[in-house]
């Protein structure tokens, strides 16, 4: 067999922070793929899921990623993110299933919320898709530094058949010996990048030269101010009569629903610029950009208990 290209050695036998996190994530991904029958990876095209997909590719090199992909599409996603999602899926040669919130609304299984936000509506299509695919493990790109409820969750998180998380009764997680055993109807959510910070993710994207949807970088966009955030003008998030539309140079720190994700003022046009910007940011990623998390201090915990990611 022809040897792969580069040969290296580290005399000190110590890994950098990113290398430690990378090997930890690859270990988790391999454990779950080895121990579960039908794992699936949630893939939205957002930076965290892109990083998890990249890690999965590394975990199984030179083979293909032995995972199905799943996206719960709220119908309010940024078109450029969906385009990126499909291109990336094709490049990796993996199969993507899309569960559409829109379908649920049109046949009445879900009802549009008064505030127009669709993020909380994702839970039902997600659970249905998990059941339909008979998935016993679901990979997500959630990180513990995102939110104080996430900060409490195990790397392998057991869910009942309603997808519910019971924060008062989590399984102990000892050493790096993950216990993925579950009974019929239960499934496990697996979070390989639990221990990564937003800055770790960006440094890794820079180091690995990972492509992202363009809206993570500074660009001009028509926006208006609402809830202290810049909201994009779009068919699903029009400006109200009392809101002034202006063109600004912005970027997104998270990409979710157009209806609840805000942009931040930024001139960071390259990944190096973003790494620098995130390094000195004084506001958390979700605090800066997610209206849905501002509903209450425990908004994320409440949604997770109901089966949300």
């Amino acid at each position, binding site marked *: 067999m022809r040897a792969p290209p580069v040969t*290296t050695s580290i005399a000190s036998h110590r890994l950098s922070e990113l290398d430690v996190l990378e090997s930890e994530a690859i270990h988790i991904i391999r454990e779950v793929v080895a121990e579960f029958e039908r794992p699936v990876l949630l893939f939205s095209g957002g930076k965290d899921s892109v990083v998890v997909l990249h890690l999965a590719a590394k975990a*199984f090199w030179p083979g293909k990623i032995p995972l199905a992909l799943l996206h719960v599409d709220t119908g309010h996603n940024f078109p450029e993110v969906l385009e990126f999602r499909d291109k990336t899926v094709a490049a990796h040669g993996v199969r993507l299933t899309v569960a559409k919130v829109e379908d649920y609304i049109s046949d009445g299984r879900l009802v549009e919320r008064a505030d127009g936000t669709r993020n909380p509506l994702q839970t039902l299509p997600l659970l249905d898709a998990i059941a339909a695919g008979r998935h016993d493990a679901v990979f997500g790109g959630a990180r513990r530094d995102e939110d*104080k409820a996430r900060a409490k969750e195990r790397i392998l998180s057991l869910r009942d058949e309603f997808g519910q998380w019971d924060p008062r009764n989590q399984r102990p997680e000892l050493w790096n010996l993950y216990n993925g055993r579950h009974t019929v109807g239960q499934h496990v959510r697996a979070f390989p990048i639990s221990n990564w910070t937003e800055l770790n993710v960006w440094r890794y994207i820079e180091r*690995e030269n990972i492509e992202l949807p363009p809206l993570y970088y500074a660009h001009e966009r028509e926006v208006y101010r609402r809830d202290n955030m810049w909201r994009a003008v779009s068919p699903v998030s029009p400006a109200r009569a009392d809101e002034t539309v202006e063109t600004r140079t912005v970027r997104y720190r998270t990409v979710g629903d157009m209806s609840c994700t805000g942009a931040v003022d930024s001139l960071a046009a390259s990944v190096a610029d973003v790494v620098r910007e995130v390094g000195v940011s004084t506001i958390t990623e979700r605090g800066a950009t997610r209206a849905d998390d501002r509903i209450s201090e425990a908004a994320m915990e409440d949604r997770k208990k109901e089966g949300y990611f």
Partner: protein
Amino acid sequence: MTLTIDTHNLAAEAAVSAPAGTLFRFATAGSVDDGKSTLVGRLLHDSKAILADQLEAVARTSTERGFGGESGGIDFALLTDGLRAEREQGITIDVAYRYFATPARSFILADCPGHVQYTRNMVTGATTADAVIMLIDARKGVLEQTRRHLSVVALLRVPHVIIAVNKIDLLDYDEAAYREVEASVRQVTAELGLGSGLPSEVHVIPVSALVGDNVVDRSARTPWYAGPSLLELLETLTVIDDRDSTGRAIEAFRLPVQLVLRPQGAVVVAPELADSYRDYRAYAGQVASGSIKVGDTVSVEPGGGTSTVTGIDFAGVALDEAFAPQSIALRLADDLDIARGAVIAAAGTLPPVTRTLEADLFWLDPRPLAPGARVLVKFGTTVVQALISAVTGRLNLATLGAEPATGLAVNDIGQASIRLSRDLPVERYRQNRRSGAFLVIHPQDGATLAAGIVTAPGEATPAGDGSGAGSEVSP
């Protein structure tokens, strides 16, 4: 778009990113109300790791709850007590992981609960910690939970332990009162054997988590204390102690095999290379201990075969050497029968296989353990059926000695004899912290019943006695 897995240069990366290996994990421990969460909040706050919106949210909630006093009206515990129930009850229920960095290194901190009821969560936080900060309320001294947690730290051989004698403000920064607490703590740590081996040293610091004395900066109010602040200590402790003076791992090489990579033509390499990868076969896993070089001889268990390492792959990068905790894929010269659950080790370093062992168990499940229990145990990537044949003792927290026991209840730390359904190369935890640790799992509902550490492997199975036979449980 083409698929890009960049073959980055690991050595170059290590050189540019601050001192390599600078990720340091630590956990808090101690009895409820001793100030663990407050200390963590103070550490995050004073090292400027709390962002404006988080601080604002915490300040708002603190005010709503009428929190006043020395910390400028901020209840720092709210920074980690993030669950609704935790805020309502003012206690910590489960571990909160927080992340912060100083110019010296990056930290992952696990703020653990103090309640006896949630000991399982404290053990969770401690198993991965490079250091444990043991909080003691200076007014109360050593409590039963202090003893339980210190016993956990001692048995788990956490590399470093720091005793933070907290609420020193409530003793008016009185040296004599502090010395008294320090002496009683040092007596307990000595009885537990802490400070000899791992952890190698017991550090004791007088702090006030609420006010901030000796947390990030050394305090002028404790002129009688000449040591470092808590953060200074955290910044300078070595990452693990199982290295020699040149930083090389001293434990023998162990690779628990997670899965066999055999893409059989379904490869992601460039088309012109695809042919040479048709017969690719490598054993994927995370190096648990030690290091390995191309050309080294390895032995494999089960089976006892030996072979030579022909390649070490890291996602398209060929390494000439790998070490813990890298996740790699190992290619061998010979076609051995190796599957998930096998251990690849430096030749001649694996202990003989056995079917019995003696272990310390941290019993974590509300259902008590009775001798004769049939369970599953997970070592590395192997899960086998097992029988707890006897409970031989239990730790008495008052005397810190073993007392006779016939079973174990939740939160007990006990000793047991275990019979395995299959031969395994069982190692003492003392010799190898990764290979000597295991989970005890309920065979039906899959609950993690206990954390186990091997104190003594049993008698070696005689050669030719059906080595490798017996029932292995597929997950």
